[in-house]
């Protein structure tokens, strides 16, 4: 069954954000979306999540048109974690994670059901937040907070997990911890992951496929190690990068400067 977009266009006033974009979502895999600032990565993710419905063209999830799904149906299938999510600091982790069950029961329901509690427990376990579940959100470190939000998304028991720059503002150790949780979720639960990433090396290391967003459309899509190389980095980001080979033969790219074209742009 097809998941992805066909001829997807988004306009904000007269400004084109996405232009007749066609993307195929590889089911059961991890897809990274990379591209320069302002390329429309967040917009694309919000459209795929069903949050932003002011688009033309089609978004298809498991063969179904996204427009035909209600908010609650969408929420049971797709979980979306926006960038810089925030919560009232006095609410506990468990309470926040329980909100992931909102679409699974009546809006006015007071009590949490057995299946809801199980899903919340599961989500806490998968993100190693069980011990912290009674902490108020305000008492967590940035990395713990991001794991709490990840648990919130998992409590929805989605087939698709959409993440907008999940490692922003995190230190190196927490970045790796979050990316490893995401990789585990995919390999253990078969969850399809789509994530906007700004670190090319993260895309190489943690994504099966990478889609490059440039000039309002998908410039290239395919296995990460085939899509990402010095020439694509130069043309998409305007950055000269050097390739190193890490352990296991994996490629690592280190940006060393701007390409000459970007240099000229800068001087103007």
């Amino acid at each position, binding site marked *: 069954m097809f998941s992805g977009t066909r001829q997807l266009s988004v306009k904000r006033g007269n400004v084109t954000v996405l232009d007749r974009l066609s993307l195929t979502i590889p089911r059961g895999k991890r897809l990274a979306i990379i591209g320069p600032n302002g390329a429309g990565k967040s917009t694309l993710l*919000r459209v795929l*999540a*069903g*949050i932003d419905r002011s688009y033309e063209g089609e978004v298809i999830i498991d063969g179904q048109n996204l427009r035909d799904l209600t*908010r*609650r149906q*969408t*929420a*049971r299938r*797709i*979980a*979306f*974690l*926006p960038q810089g*999510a*925030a*919560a*009232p600091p*006095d*609410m*506990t982790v*468990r*309470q*926040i994670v329980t*909100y*992931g069950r*909102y*679409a699974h029961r009546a*809006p*006015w*329901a*007071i009590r949490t059901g057995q299946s809801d509690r199980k899903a919340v427990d599961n989500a806490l376990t998968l993100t190693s937040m069980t011990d912290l*579940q*009674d902490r108020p959100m305000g008492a967590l470190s940035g990395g713990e907070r991001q794991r709490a939000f990840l648990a*919130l*998304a998992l409590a*929805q028991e989605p087939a698709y997990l959409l993440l907008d720059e999940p490692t922003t503002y995190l230190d190196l150790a927490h970045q790796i911890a979050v990316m490893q949780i995401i990789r585990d979720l995919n390999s253990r639960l078969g969850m399809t992951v789509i994530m906007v990433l700004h670190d090319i090396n993260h895309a190489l290391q943690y994504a099966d496929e990478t889609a490059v967003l440039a000039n309002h459309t998908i410039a290239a899509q395919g296995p990460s190690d085939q899509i990402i190389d010095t020439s694509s980095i130069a043309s998409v980001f305007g950055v000269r990068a050097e390739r190193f080979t890490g352990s296991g033969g994996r490629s690592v790219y280190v940006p060393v400067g701007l390409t000459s074209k970007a240099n000229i742009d800068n001087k103007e």
Partner: protein
Amino acid sequence: MDRASLQRGSGRFRLLLLFLVLMMSAFGVSLMKGTVSIRPDEMIAAATGTGSGLHEQIFWNIRLPRTITGALVGANLAVSGAILQGIMRNPLADPHIIGISSGAGLAGVLVMLAFPAYSWLITPAAFLGAMGAAVMIYLLAWKQGIQPVRIILAGVAVSAFLSAGISALMILYSERVHGALVWLVGGLSARSWPEVSMLVPYTAIGLILAFLASRPLNLLLLGDDLARGLGLRVELTRLAMTAVAALLAASAVSVAGLLGFVGLIVPHAARLLIGSDYRFLLPASALLGAALITGSDTAARLLFAPAELPVGILMAALGAPFFLFLLRRMT
């Protein structure tokens, strides 16, 4: 559930119980104190129909309905403020400050002055006025989402516009203006059973709807995108809850006039004490709002006895500095 979360849960229930006791105490004092003081035993006698005629008269016809009115008005304004602060994501949102009360006031004054024969229309008209003002504020403040500061600015503008309308009406109907003037200041003097029966249905509907919406209100605290992703229909929830907040504020305004700052002070105090979870915040706001108005009304009655201060003046004296304090903390 483990012990820690149970404790926290029961701690919040205990706080609610404490607020209930506080509200009942304020209620009791309000029944006893005034130009004529009634002792507890005399009050019980009056309540059971074995007291002196004067005490019975004061208890049944003056103090009891007035105190009930005050409690309901306080609860309505506080819950209205708690809802508005959540859906507008703005700590300064309060039916009075952002002009929802002015909308209700303008509609109320219009009925009172231009159609005095149809006084039963005051509450429905006030509701429409409040809702109209809320919608106007949204339209003015909307620019790719709701921005806290823009809402306040739009509210101030709408409020000024509506107040100008009220002033114009008062000048046009200057021969009937006295009643409207007393009403506008915000007070509870001479409020009796007709006002109680006018308030009760609106209060019941408004509070029940608000409590049922605790969970959607909680979801909105996570931000629009996250709430939408969790399955909430954000715009619909906002619109519906604005209507509930307007209904509560309008019913309060239609019996007690423009009582300011209750909807600002009480939800803040409640949030500090019991947290931002709406399942607890709403009942806490209702109880504390009722306690604050009955208590303040008693104080306003006693401060310059035998002269009586409208409770609205006392609330403004308390509330304006609090508003400035919040504003300072916010920026």
